[in-house]
């Protein structure tokens, strides 16, 4: 076995369902045993292969019970990936399954890349040669999708904070480097353990802040990104309101919920929806005119689900048709609203345009048809039509895992300083912190340290 051990949630998202975290690799048993306390006290590594065990996941840091679980222990090669595989069945939905995943990631597993289980199954000879092409396609498709989401997040607040922090670390690194590579350069004070401790402490506090922010954002991100589009006055706001009122908006117990990023998060028949903030949607009242504008495209591109609203009491316009074009190939539910008014819309044409989509009619004013809409959303989801939705969520899990690792490395750097380890060696951990933060925003270019070195200091012969 030549790969490291990977973990991911391997069931689709959904409230109330049993969710499974899968762990694969030669350390799968070892990592699971760090967290799992079986009812009989038996270690998983001593258990017979292909058996299932009841017990608890313990957070090793606190010693407290995190989840009640059933764990399947399967030794390779008779597994999906041909590697040792552990599957942890959690009940209690996303929050609990995610907690288990994070614990695994903090205890030696790495978050699986898109399509990685399948890739391993193939590389380990589990999957037939004829399927190689499909495996490559899968990796490509999943990655591109994840990239889209990651790019969207790049522009967010989190990424700005990370960039700022990375720049600060980079300046420390450049300072250490200039002392090493230009020992006679006298224009900068020698980096001392004292300064390094101060700076590391600051970096640590900032990472902890980022981690809190990410964890707050997490629950909100754990929904299908859902965008409501339509011309002005078709009833988009009413739709949002009735979805929110009908279904109690999910209240988190985490303070400071980032309402500036996401306006509403609702649970529709077990399907978590993240309704893009109404301000944003209102701002794009003129979405038809701006359909070519990059920002609108971006919002739509990242959406998992589109709710396209039409006005029953108005004629179908070119703008409406343009919206249909813009959402082609996506998961769309077409909602013809204002059924309480006189019909002016050409329903035949609407049906034609909605051929590939689900179509519901509503009168939001009279509270009619909302049930049908919810039914449509739920069935889309549970039929598995919407599948890529967990990318945002995975991407966020990745952030948290990387932030946790970054926290560990900065801790190690600080321990190094305390021990009096030479600064150029402590630097190894500091550099790793910088790289991990870079992975979150998809930037780990080594050259930037050298760029920093020569822009920050006047060096030369």
């Amino acid at each position, binding site marked *: 076995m030549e790969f490291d051990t990977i973990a991911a949630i391997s069931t689709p998202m959904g409230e109330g369902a049993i969710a499974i975290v899968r762990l694969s690799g030669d350390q799968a048993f070892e990592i699971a045993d760090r967290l799992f306390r079986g009812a009989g006290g038996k270690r998983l590594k001593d258990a017979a292969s292909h058996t299932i065990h009841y017990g608890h996941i313990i957070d090793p840091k606190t010693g407290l019970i995190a989840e009640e679980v059933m764990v399947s222990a399967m030794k390779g090669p008779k597994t999906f990936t041909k590697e040792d595989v552990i599957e942890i069945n959690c009940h209690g939905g996303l929050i609990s399954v995610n907690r288990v995943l994070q614990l695994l990631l903090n205890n030696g597993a790495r978050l699986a890349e898109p399509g990685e289980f399948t890739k391993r199954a193939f590389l380990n000879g589990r999957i037939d040669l004829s399927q190689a092409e499909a495996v490559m*396609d899968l*990796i490509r498709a999943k990655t591109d999708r994840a990239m889209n989401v990651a790019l969207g997040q790049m522009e967010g607040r989190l990424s700005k904070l990370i960039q700022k922090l990375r720049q600060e670390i980079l300046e420390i690194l450049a300072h250490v*480097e200039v*002392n*090493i590579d230009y020992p006679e350069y006298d224009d900068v004070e020698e980096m001392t353990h004292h300064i390094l401790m101060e700076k590391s402490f600051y970096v640590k506090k900032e990472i902890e802040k980022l981690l809190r922010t990410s964890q707050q954002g997490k629950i909100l991100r754990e929904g299908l990104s859902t965008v409501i589009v339509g011309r002005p006055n078709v009833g988009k706001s009413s739709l949002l309101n009735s979805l929110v009122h009908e279904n109690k908006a999910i209240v988190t117990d985490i303070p400071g919920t980032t309402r500036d990023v996401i306006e509403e998060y609702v649970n529709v028949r077990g399907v978590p929806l993240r309704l893009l903030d109404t301000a944003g949607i209102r701002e794009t009242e003129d979405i038809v005119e701006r359909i070519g504008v990059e920002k609108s495209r971006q919002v739509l591109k990242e959406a998992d689900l589109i709710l396209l609203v039409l006005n029953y009491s108005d004629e179908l316009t070119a703008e409406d048709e343009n919206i249909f074009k813009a959402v082609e190939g996506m998961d769309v539910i077409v909602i013809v609203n204002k059924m309480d008014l006189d019909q002016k819309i050409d329903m035949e044409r609407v049906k034609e345009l909605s051929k590939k989509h689900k179509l519901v009619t509503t009168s939001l004013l009279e509270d009619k048809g909302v049930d049908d809409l919810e039914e449509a959303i739920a069935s889309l989801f549970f039929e598995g039509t919407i599948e890529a939705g967990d990318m945002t969520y995975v991407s966020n899990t990745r952030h948290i895992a990387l932030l946790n690792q970054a926290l560990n490395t900065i801790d190690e750097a600080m321990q190094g300083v305390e021990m009096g380890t030479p600064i150029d060696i402590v630097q*190894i951990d500091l550099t790793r912190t910088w790289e991990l933060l870079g992975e979150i925003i998809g930037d780990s270019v080594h050259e930037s340290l050298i760029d920093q070195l020569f822009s920050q200091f006047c060096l*030369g012969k």
Partner: protein
Amino acid sequence: MTYEAGSYDVIVVGAGHAGVEAGLASARLGAKTLMITINLDMVAFMPCNPSVGGPAKGIVVREIDALGGEMGKNIDKTHIQMRMLNTGKGPAVRALRAQADKFTYQHEMKKALENEPNLTLIQGMVERLMVENGECKGVMTQTGAVYSSKTVVITTGTFLRGEIILGELKYSSGPNNQQPSIKLSEHLQELGFELVRFKTGTPPRVNSHSIDYSKTEIQPGDDVPRAFSYETTKYITDQLPCWLTYTNEETHTLIDNNLHRSPMYSGMIKGTGPRYCPSIEDKVVRFNDKPRHQIFLEPEGRNTQEVYVQGLSTSLPEDVQQKILRTIPGLENVQMMRAGYAIEYDAIVPTQLWPTLETKNVKNLYTAGQINGTSGYEEAAGQGLMAGMNAGLKSIGKEEVILSRSDAYIGVLIDDLITKGTNEPYRLLTSRAEYRLLLRHDNADLRLTELGYKVGLIREERYEKFLVKKQAIEEEKNRLQGIIIKPASEVQALIKSQGGSELKDGIRASDLLKRPEMTYEHIQKLIPAEGTLDPDVTEQVEIQIKYEGYIEKSLQQVERLKKMENKKIPENIDYDAINGLASEAKQKLKEVRPLSIAQASRISGVNPADISILLVYLEQGRIAKISAE
């Protein structure tokens, strides 16, 4: 008229720092070697600073030595001072630097070449390569002499279409007014090589008699005798100092007022210069808030009055240079002997090379040194050694050698060049090495002697000595790991005197050594070894034990790297046939043609998904092949 002038295994074109290592390596491993240089008086000439080593570079010199190269031995014989840098820092970044007597350096190196049995050294200007069906079969000189060979190494430095720029003056020239090599550059283009134009520069030289040293600070060498080579036994004790002075407001105003006459700012210089070696005008413009810049005065040798003015590299006109010099304390009445200048030259885009330094375009042709886009004597020598070694090995039908990034700084250097390319003259920095804790100056022999011996560049006698040292290190490490030190009163007293906290219980000697306040010497006092151990041995024992945790961490990373390196990519792979690859990745992969998955993953523009897809594709090919058999 052309004539047949002889037949060799390997021909090395050029005898600078890359050329001499290439020629010696090839000859020493048994290939009949010819070296051709434009001017025999310029062998191993130092056209810029008279020094060898320094951070990262000094480690390269040690690596060259461990692989049987000459640079370390030569500087050990010819330096005027030597210093260990970064002694206050960790072992990974310590490095030796020597000031050279540049004239004796050249003469000693020439002697080494002349006395090498398998090596012929001649003067001549190579203008063409004899290329048939994409294979290099020899070279032709200006006089029509055709030399045939199995492989050729080109090390042309800054001679390729070189142009010196000094103020408003610009003329065709190699370094230090040598004859430039113009036709070879054109010929390389004809052969399909992509060339880039780079620039570098050098400061003025002044007469030592005209310097008032009382206004400067002395910079002496170390009191302890030092050497680069593991074979050196004779140390130079009478050292010459260097001197430190500074520029000031007056200097900067003068430069500002003359910027319009600077070829850098008038647009006359088009080549890309290195950021790490800016001219003084560049420093003043870019860092105009700095009140002063350091200037080191470095003697160029024992039998000359010429002094190198480090920190004042410039291409300003001669009269301005003279005036600038005289604003500097100690140089008020200085007599400038040679003006500084900038030089532009052609280099080949290094992604056109395999990791062996053989060109992808023309088989059996290798390049090394500045022609590959680097700068620095040590970088040149390291590449020269590898190119010469591989050209030699190939000519006698043996397997070529590629150093990994985890083996040596030389490996980092070559991998960076051929995988990432460079858009400025490339210089090694310690931060370019991911595993610098493993790539130390003190363990270069432990890392590379075995390889040097295997390819025939390390002699039996030295190898045996090396094995003895290696064994001594292991034995002493084992001894310290095996002994428990009890909390006896003399132990506690020693620990306390070093500011550590007293032992509560017995402790393994190796664990006690890991404490920051403890040194090997302390441990040795408590539990003396039998007989005296070589300081080289105890240094290794101390470093290896003290930093074990960090070393272990680096080794784990190397382990992962090795796995990726073992996943080879066949040379004839068709990237266009792999559907899943992103188009940017395809293009980069086609350009670089990496030999392993590890190398592919370092190419900018190739992301992890592309690597995954490549892995699946390769695996598919492998399975298909097995089933076909």
